[in-house]
């Protein structure tokens, strides 16, 4: 049982929580994730990247977007409530060294896992260029935090409601055209965004690392549910990843597999919401 020490709503569907987990806080490194379950018997196992950790408080921070029934249930918990299953840190840590100039591209909620990586890269002496983007102003998170570590900071929204009106790939392309070109790009966000970031950098041959969020069950290398095609090989995100060479990842297949349960999920979510509305009506 892990206690929720703090909860904050960052935007309409996005929440931040600090969870009591001293062992995970001590062991985790940038790039790693946890798996949690809201209900031990029937709950789904949800993988979430660790956005931050505080060893003094013995806590980790997660930031998540409500997308289905399980994340809705999680968002309904409050400070003081317990999360019955919390396991981690999982996955391999990001490899950090002084690469030179690194472009950190974060899309939507992907800015959360990007933040500790950018922080570590900065600490290792890199010149860090940060691009963060979202559909619209309300969905931008961690702007100040990202700005404070970036040597250059670019913010864009798809609809132009804040910052530059552009997709993140636009400024990314401009940076790749600079001389010298950047040494590396790290892109974290929705699969489609990581795919297009990888496509953008491919002609410039700039190594592009992406962090994949596939379906997972155990997270320890047992079930094979998290498999992705990387180059000609099958890789398992929970033990081989979550970070891979974006130029080699078969994103189309990964997206199709991520959508495997979409229809069922949607139905479940609808049923759940309906039941909840009824319950609330009954109370009034």
């Amino acid at each position, binding site marked *: 049982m892990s206690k929720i020490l703090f909860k904050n709503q960052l935007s309409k569907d996005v929440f931040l929580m600090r969870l009591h987990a001293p062992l995970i806080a001590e062991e985790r490194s940038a790039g790693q994730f946890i798996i949690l379950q809201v209900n031990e018997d029937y709950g789904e196992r949800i993988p979430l990247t660790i956005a931050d950790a505080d060893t003094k408080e013995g806590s980790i921070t997660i930031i998540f977007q409500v997308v289905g029934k399980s994340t809705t249930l999680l968002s309904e918990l409050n400070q003081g409530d317990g999360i019955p299953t919390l396991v981690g840190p999982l996955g391999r840590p990001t490899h950090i060294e002084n690469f030179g100039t690194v472009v950190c591209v974060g899309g939507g909620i992907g800015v959360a896992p990007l933040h500790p990586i950018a922080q570590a890269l900065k600490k290792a002496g890199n010149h860090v260029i940060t691009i963060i983007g979202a559909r619209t102003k309300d969905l931008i998170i961690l702007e100040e935090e990202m700005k404070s570590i970036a040597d250059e900071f670019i913010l864009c929204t798809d609809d132009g409601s804040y910052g530059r009106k552009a997709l993140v790939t636009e400024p990314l392309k401009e940076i790749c055209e600079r001389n010298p070109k950047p040494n590396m790009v790290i892109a974290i966000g929705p699969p489609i965004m990581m795919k297009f970031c990888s496509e953008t950098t491919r002609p410039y041959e700039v190594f592009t690392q992406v962090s994949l969020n596939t379906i997972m069950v155990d997270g320890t290398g047992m079930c094979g549910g998290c498999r992705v095609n990387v180059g000609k090989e099958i890789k398992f995100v929970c033990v081989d990843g979550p970070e891979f060479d974006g130029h080699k990842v078969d994103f189309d297949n990964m997206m*199709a597999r991520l959508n495997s349960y979409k229809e069922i999920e949607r139905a479940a979510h609808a049923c759940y919401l309906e039941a909840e509305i009824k319950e609330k009506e009954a109370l009034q």
Partner: protein
Amino acid sequence: MNHRTLEELSNDAKKLIADYVSRIDDMKAKERTKIPAQEMPAQDPEVRSHNLEEVALGYTMEQARIEAMRCIQCVKKTCVEDCPVKIDIPRFINHIAHEEFQDAADVIKEASLLPAICGRVCPQETQCQSNCAVGKALKDVDKSVAIGRLERFIADWERSTGKIAVPEVKSETGKKVAVVGSGPAGLVVAADCRREGHHVTIFEAFHKLGGVLRYGIPEFRLPNDIIDKEIETLTAMGVEIKTNFVVGRTRKLLDLINKDGYHAVFVGTGAGLPLFMGIEGESLVGVFSANEYLTRANLMRAFEKEKADTPIYPSKNVAVLGGGNVAMDSARMAKRLGAENVYVVYRRTEKEMPARKEEVEHAKEEGIEFYFLQNAKRILGDDKGKVNAMECLRYELGEPDESGRRRPVVVPNSEFLLDVDTVIVAIGNSSNPLISQTTPEIKVNKWGNILVDETQKTSSDRIFAGGDIVLGAATVILAMGEGRRAASAINKMLAEEIEKEKAAMN
């Protein structure tokens, strides 16, 4: 075969028993071989293929005693020789015949710790029952004394008395043993080391204990409350349990020794990543490893569609690739989850299938179709990337290979299409990569299995290993056996240390 109900089988046995009891110690071997082999009562196939309840219902008392009287009490006990943990089989069977059930239980427990589980899942027809004298005399291995069913009968009888004694624990030694993984290997190590008075902690990555017993083998073969009972016993003995703890990640394995003060570690992390065929179309939506499919259904309870949040893929026509227990479990689970047609596609013939015979029979009764001497060539998908067919090839048996088995060879141009929307791959596992990835000090072979000596000790001091992580995918009883051996080596090592410490004090 006509389904015979529990009532019918029970009545038959009731009619016969008095006569046999009256001659119990006088029957000649010849007479004993004439006693009818007792059929295992089972749920009606039509009913059970829609529920998750246990298929095999267990012998009645009369059936068990009659079956026990079939044993001719050999002097040369081939059954014991073929039992991986050397249970004194004729002795416990003789107790059953004489209605001395507690004595029978005690005999089994001298050698085996988990009889309720082994009685259900051991491949008896290739172990204790394979060379049984009665089976030999009747020239039919299926007519061997049903040792496994008798073992299960006794374990269930003991459970039903509600008086299972918690094993005695010696006084605290102050030594600490860490057990990594709570499969059968880990559970046995925990019990055996705790009995010696050591402090034992089980670390388990999942939120529930039992390993494959919980997430792999389905309820209809091994009900969860049997695993729960074993774990209750461990807790009652004072074993500490830490779930949601991935050794290697939550804590480095060596830190358990260097920082947390454990004096010995047992690694029982089980088999790992599923193997795939390496054929075209294997990453389509609707292709699953058996591990994922069964874990969703069992551990995450996706079978209870109303309650579970973890979804399971809705299937109508399912192909299962493989011929082992894992393939049988996947196929039968798919049926229970609502699939209309389930095909098991296996490259060799029925004879070579490694699955327990009883499971194959049960699967057939439940309407699973078997495609022997056939194999998948590629999986085809629709424009959304979802499986819609599987192309198969026919095989025939060719020359025998090194193992003496006739090698299946492709029949040229024998391609045909199978109409399926789901493919479950159950062709085996490689090793669990986590410990070797995070603990390079422990030596592994080229397949990633941990290397151990004859006492189960690894290349690292104080670290032992056993079960599937050492053997590759094996069996429950072999994992248990390795656990026993490791525990005894750990206990010996710790006892010597305690002796030395005492000597130094004096």
